């Protein structure tokens, strides 16, 4: 992807409710797309990645993301939030002709008890 936009800087949900973190990309070719999670005072950890094999990608900790070419979106979802999901989430995109992946600005996920 040539650019990646995370639509929300902060999302707050109650424990046990669904999570939706939104990401849009711009690209003139088939992108590779990624979601990373960063817990406080830690490095980034890869949650999942899309590389054109299947549009619905399952990742770790119950997260999944769906690639929608018509909407240029790659939103991250989880059916039921857990307190341990509170973290910063980064969407990132690249492609075969890019030299590196580009990161979005991040979405802070807060979980209310």
């Amino acid at each position, binding site marked *: 992807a040539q650019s990646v936009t995370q639509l929300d800087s902060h999302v707050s949900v109650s424990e046990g409710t669904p999570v939706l973190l939104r990401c849009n990309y711009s690209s003139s070719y088939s992108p590779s797309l990624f979601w990373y999670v960063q817990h406080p005072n830690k*490095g*980034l950890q890869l949650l999942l990645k899309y590389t054109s094999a299947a549009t619905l990608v399952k990742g770790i900790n119950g997260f999944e993301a769906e690639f929608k070419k018509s909407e240029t979106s790659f939103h991250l979802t989880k059916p039921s939030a857990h307190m341990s999901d509170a973290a910063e989430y980064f969407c990132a995109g690249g492609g075969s002709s*890019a*030299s*590196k992946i580009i*990161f979005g600005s991040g979405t802070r996920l807060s979980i209310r008890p």
Partner: protein
Amino acid sequence: GAGVSQSPSNKVTEKGKDVELRCDPISGHTALYWYRQSLGQGLEFLIYFQGNSAPDKSGLPSDRFSAERTGGSVSTLTIQRTQQEDSAVYLCASSLRAAGLYEQYFGPGTRLTVT
């Protein structure tokens, strides 16, 4: 196997001093990236290496910042005459190749505080 390691984990330095930050990538990864993350902010790309070459230095904030990589492995990021605005977490990542197809694996970061 071993992941990306960075040292030191924390560095406190006085304004005007030089600092060196080190990154050990995953073995076999030819690409290495440096980012800066200020408190509560996103990732700011600094520089990347493919092998020992740095094709893109566009993110280095000033000529006080430099980086090198030797033997296609370890990289050091040097900040000369540190300023308070240099205080941040410096993250290193490596990937199999320098291409947008490959995920990056991140180290735990070096927290730099300039007093």
